[in-house]
């Protein structure tokens, strides 16, 4: 008995939908094994991970706070990955977006009008996009590998952030803590429903961005261009589309959205700049993008799911005393199975009996009739 992968003539519509769920199922099974090996009750652990955070209204708000940057960045990355541009540096674009967006509340704290917040958000988008434009420029001009350049720029961004909060932007009345002054109310992203929890408008931005990009990808000529150039660059060139313009387009969109996520996070949930403003949203969003099948609508759901692993990780840490690194392990396992399960979209699995041997033992002059299926 042997397992064979048989190429399907067409993409399987069924498995395009089902494969993320298969991946999720396998992740839960392997996760349970992981908890058992850690000496924890796997049922309890999974309960704290996936059920407990959903039982209270305030934690739904927390879920929205965590999901917002994941979805914002995830849909931008979907455009990148669909067009075959591998932006791994969304974390850096998020940080630079947050820094640039914070220029107004930190350096001009007295500028408090209705314009303050929109300007901050705009500057966050511009900052993230400009930072994303660096690997795009390097790729189109010098043919460098954007995976490496965008990834390395993440560390540059982290050090820049570290420098500004410890150096020029440090709050003079902050008891030497490495952080900026608290943003004024005019520079703070309002909460959607302050009565029940602290989820802010960042989540609304995420949903709107996902819907807009979904419409662009599936209904507009620009989205067609993204898909053609990603799948088959030569056919894209034959269509008259420019691949270097597409590199910039993809990096500017995803960088801008990461920047928006950064400034939303800082002006919403945190309220100031500090050395760490993201628990790796820019990297987790890669998993979000793939788990959502690079489809902006799917990414809304996968973003919520990955947000749940963050919350669940915190809950499990408190209730069971497992390390917070378990969250990363969980996310890694999930990405692994997502990519593996995607094979089922293009291939189907067949179990093969060794045919040749059975024939050699049964020599007959007539053409051998081999049984079909599982006789």
């Amino acid at each position: 008995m042997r397992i064979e992968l048989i190429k399907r003539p067409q993409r399987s519509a069924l498995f395009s939908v089902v494969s993320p769920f298969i991946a999720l199922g396998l992740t839960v099974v392997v996760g349970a094994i992981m908890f058992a090996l850690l000496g924890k009750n796997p049922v309890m652990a999974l309960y704290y991970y996936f059920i407990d955070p959903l039982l209270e209204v305030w934690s739904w708000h927390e879920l929205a706070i965590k999901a917002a940057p994941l979805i914002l960045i995830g849909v931008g990355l979907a455009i990148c990955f669909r067009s075959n541009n591998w932006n791994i540096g969304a974390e850096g674009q998020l940080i630079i977006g947050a820094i640039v967006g914070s220029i107004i509340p930190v350096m001009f704290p007295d500028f408090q009008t209705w314009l303050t917040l929109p300007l901050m958000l705009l500057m966050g988008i511009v900052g993230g996009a400009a930072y994303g434009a660096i690997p795009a420029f390097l790729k189109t001009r010098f043919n460098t590998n954007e995976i490496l350049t965008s990834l390395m720029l993440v560390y540059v961004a982290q050090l820049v952030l570290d420098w500004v909060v410890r150096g020029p932007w440090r709050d003079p009345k902050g008891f030497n803590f490495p952080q900026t002054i608290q943003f004024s109310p005019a520079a703070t992203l309002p909460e959607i429903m302050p009565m029940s929890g602290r989820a802010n408008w960042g989540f609304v931005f995420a949903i709107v961005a996902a819907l807009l990009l979904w419409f662009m990808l599936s209904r507009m000529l620009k989205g067609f261009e993204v898909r053609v150039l990603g799948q088959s660059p030569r056919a894209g060139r034959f269509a008259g589309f420019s691949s270097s313009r597409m590199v910039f387009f993809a990096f500017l969109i995803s960088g801008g959205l990461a920047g928006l996520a950064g400034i939303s996070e800082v002006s919403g949930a945190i309220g100031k700049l500090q050395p760490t403003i993201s628990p790796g949203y820019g990297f987790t969003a890669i998993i979000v993008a793939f788990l959502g099948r690079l489809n902006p609508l799917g990414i809304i759901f996968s973003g919520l799911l990955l947000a749940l692993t963050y919350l669940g990780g915190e809950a499990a840490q408190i209730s069971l005393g497992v390390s917070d690194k378990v969250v990363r392990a969980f996310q890694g396992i999930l990405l692994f199975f997502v990519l593996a399960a995607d094979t089922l979209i293009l291939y189907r699995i067949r179990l093969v009996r060794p045919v040749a041997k059975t024939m050699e033992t049964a020599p007959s002059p007539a053409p051998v009739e081999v049984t079909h299926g599982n006789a």
Partner: protein
Amino acid sequence: MGGTVSAHHDAETLLEVRGLTKIFGTLKACDNVDLNIAKGEIHALLGENGAGKSTLVKMLFGSLEPYSGQILWQGQPVAITSPGVAKKLGIGMVFQHFSLFEALSAAENIALSLDDGAPIGQIAAKARALSYSYGLPLDPDSLVGDLSVGERQRIEIIRCLLQTPQLIILDEPTSVLTPQEADKLFETLERLRAEGKSILYISHRLEEVKRICDRATVLRHGKVVGHCNPREETAASLARMMVGSEVKSVVRAPLEGIAQAQTLLEINGLSRKPATPFSVPLTNIRLAVRAGEVIGIAGVAGNGQGEFFEAISGEARQSDAAAVRIRGKDAGRLDITGRRLLGAAFVPEERLGHGAAPRMKLSENLLLSRHATDGKAFVGTGGVTKSASIYNAAQRIIEVMDVRKSAPDPEAAALSGGNLQKFIVGRELDRSPAVMVVNQPTWGVDAGAAAHIRQALIELARAGSAVLVISQDLDELFEISDAIAVMHNGTLSAPMPAAEATLEKIGLLMGGAEPGHAPHEGEAA
């Protein structure tokens, strides 16, 4: 089935195939195929594209595993599980698409496929001796990148012969050769036959098969439809067996008043530097295609046809705006969209990945080349695509071109090569372009579809368009062209009116002879 096989059982059988079946998904690529090859014969495997020839051969060479059935080698049942096993048994194969490293020498390429670890000098000496003894002179030290396609094929053949096979499988070997080079190859094959080696010869060129093959097995839709002696058949009767019905011949109406016709495509002193170390530079190409005519460009593969096509289509632009003129307007600096808007249409050689995006639906592939020219019909305000009208237009093309498919709007990769090509050509014809440039219109397309495409191109020209066809298939060019020019080493000869052109004259030009000069023997020692 196969009642005629028994008549040949007197000759000693080398390879026998019984009831071989291979299933891909729901498709029976090979369905209960019987075949036997005697020692010392050249056996033709005939069939249209998609008839199952490649699948059968891949099973014989161990690249695919049969679903059911039996292979007997010298009377013994064998399981050919990998190409290595096939080589050990004594089966060698020369593929249609070469697998050579251009930056390595011929001898190094040969050494890579032998796993005996012999020193390179020894292999080179052996290869040189063998190549001369078979009349296929080859310099083992030459760099593959510098060699012509015909010479590259020699490397493949020598590489195969060095493993002293009993059975040699040749897949469409003459598709890349000039008529003269093909003659040389036939001599070699006859020599091998005289030595008692067997050859399985895959081709769709019926004249060749009639000329050199002793027996033929004809496949259609995965099934053997007959075994025959090709010498007793006519090309028409063989074609009938392959296709299953009469193939319509192409009708070319006489060309009238061409002298007064307007020039729609003009190429003035087009030159192009090589883009990569192994691409061919174009030198001072001049050509005019007038309304109403079909001009054919012959040439052995790799003589600059691809570079020429890119330069005309605008995928590679020129610095001189007048180097390419479309409908009287300078187009040299325009990109492919700009040239399309001037009324030109292009069909590239590669279907999947160039002319069409494999994993996109046919309707999306329609948008691929027509989003600019049919902007009003297919794209609405704000860049929103009109999927309903695109879908309807795709269905119209599918109907006109008789594209056979399994779903209403399948992905391009799900279509057979011939059907996809019909769609890609139909996509451009549907626009009624003033200038149509086609590279390899019927490469790998079955006879029925090829006739359909050729007829459509002639009709487009007669309706007042200028049609330029680049092809390696001389039969095709003679069938459809009003004049034939030859591309050799990046230069283009003056077009020769169809009435004056002969296979021999064109063949000499393809080999690099200057027009009007005595041909020189191109064999370097």
